[in-house]
């Protein structure tokens, strides 16, 4: 746990302080050497490392860790390609025309536009980052960030398949997610301050050709968001291996506790939004409202997303944005559940 906690904060700190000390103690020219040494060490120490990892709990940790990374990487790559395409091939004037001029109206339009990004939350973080850099009003980009993983057709279909007996669950998920995304967008308009958003410095590719800019953006986003994805995967694997599922049974008895328990579980487990409906369906000892909370909170804020948001928008932003999103998502889910379920 210590590793997973300290890594994002340290990395985010480096981001916030600009690019001056990113190399840390090792001079720049040494990183290929360090990488080579690491690879050689890893090959030489294979045997002892394998023995150390032989314990069942370590094996299951590794399997879940690798599975989360392998599962998320294709979606991350998709998001990174889209974000590079937005950054290089779509002129800023396009968004100025496509979105309503008034930010308060742009927020719901951007939330609804989330329906067109097929994928899970790993894809939406780099895309939202590119939108902000492309001059889209942050409130609208954030609304898109929150709604895209929850309301795209793939996720809604998966929800319908997972809850064959409760088709109203799909509607409830759509409505609650859209409401939270819009509310967060408007909240940002009201209270948000531009200096909380501190995206790390990026190399400018002005005047160097589109190929350089495109692949430069792909490389940067994969290395950056990928690193934070690994942090999130480690945290999720640790919780999956350590938390006994027995305590869930006790939590299910009290309605208020059960909603909170599943909301926290959604944050901790960091399951891909395309699969979370099946996990929610299997938590059958919980009420539908509690399970709706799980489905609304999960795609908007979890450990993996928090790490990736801190990397893309800066730690100061993530520390304020994540709790607000969590509270709002829980509140809206309970209300939607009371009305629709």
């Amino acid at each position: 746990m210590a590793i997973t906690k300290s890594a994002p904060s340290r990395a985010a700190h480096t981001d916030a302080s600009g690019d001056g000390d990113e190399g840390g103690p090792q001079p720049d020219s040494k990183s290929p050497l360090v990488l080579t040494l690491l690879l050689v060490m890893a090959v030489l120490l294979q045997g002892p490392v394998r023995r150390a990892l032989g314990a069942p709990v370590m094996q299951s940790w590794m399997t879940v860790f690798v599975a989360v990374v392998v599962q998320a990487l294709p979606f991350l790559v998709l998001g990174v390609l889209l974000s590079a395409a937005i950054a290089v091939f779509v002129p800023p004037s396009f968004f100025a025309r496509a979105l309503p001029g008034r930010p308060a109206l742009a927020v719901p339009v951007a939330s609804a536009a989330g329906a067109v990004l097929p994928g899970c939350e790993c894809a939406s973080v780099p895309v939202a980052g590119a939108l902000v850099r492309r001059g889209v009003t942050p409130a609208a980009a954030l609304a898109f960030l929150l709604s895209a993983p929850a309301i795209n057709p793939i996720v809604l279909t998966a929800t319908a398949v997972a809850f064959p007996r409760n088709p109203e669950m799909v509607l409830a998920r759509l409505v609650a997610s859209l409401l939270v995304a819009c509310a967060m967008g408007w909240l940002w308009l009201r209270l948000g301050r531009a200096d909380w958003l501190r995206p790390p410095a990026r190399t400018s590719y002005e005047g160097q050709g589109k190929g350089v800019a495109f692949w430069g953006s792909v490389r940067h986003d994969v290395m950056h968001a990928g690193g934070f994805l690994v942090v999130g995967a480690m945290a999720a694997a640790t919780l999956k291996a350590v938390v006994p599922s027995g305590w869930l049974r006790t939590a299910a008895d009290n309605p208020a506790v059960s909603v909170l328990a599943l909301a926290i579980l959604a944050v901790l487990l960091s399951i891909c939004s395309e699969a979370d409906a099946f996990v929610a369906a299997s938590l059958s000892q919980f009420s539908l409202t509690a399970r709706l909370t799980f489905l609304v909170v999960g795609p908007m804020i979890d450990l993996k997303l928090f790490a990736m948001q801190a990397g893309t928008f800066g730690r100061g932003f993530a520390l304020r944005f994540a709790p607000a999103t969590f509270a709002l998502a829980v509140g809206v889910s309970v209300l939607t559940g009371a009305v629709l379920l």
Partner: protein
Amino acid sequence: MNRQAQSAVLFLLGAALLHAGLTDLYLRYVKAGLRPMLLASGAVLIAAALATAWYEWRRGRVDHPDDDHGHAHREPRVSWLLVLPLFALILVAPPALGSYSAMHTGTALQQSYGYPALPAAGRTLRLSLADYASRAVYDHGRSLRGRQIRITGFVALDRSGAPYLVRMALNCCAADAQPVKIGLTGRIPPVLQPDTWLEVTGTYTPRQTKDPVNHGPIPFLKVTRAAPVHAPHDPYDETWNT
């Protein structure tokens, strides 16, 4: 991490994804349907690595080699973490989830819409573990009585040493895999190692127990014959995906 190192990490990551996607390795971690996306993203990562190396080489030829080197071009140290899944995938290649996870997670048996009649021909009927368990619990074994049934799964032992036959069911990746368990009774082999794959033949029995983890129902199978088999091509049960 400078750009040469980034290029190397991107290349290795892409190669690892291609390797996992071209062999059956990826089936230990994710659903079978993710394969095209894995291969495509592996190819994109390799392309990004080659493009980075190419532009870096060209830049080195055009500019002065250490012109503005050393700032604004490096990614933060968190990028180094990308080598961890790389090592895990290439060097260790952890196995698919087995008995340890199975006994720490409650059974995820689901009720089906209906239970279509089973083929009448033949003496021995091959069923998936989840299908047997669901019919045994929610259909009260109506379609199973008087039939010889053959099921494949891996062995898991609970604290008291009682044997279960388990199959992990998966929706997306191993992080959401959940076990479906059936208890074994009857002529069980005297020595059972956890995680060995067995093909058991037996008959329906109305006996049931409750999963100690989530109180879910666990049906039993009365074993007449058990034989060790190779682990199947896809270790997970993916019927929920269809």
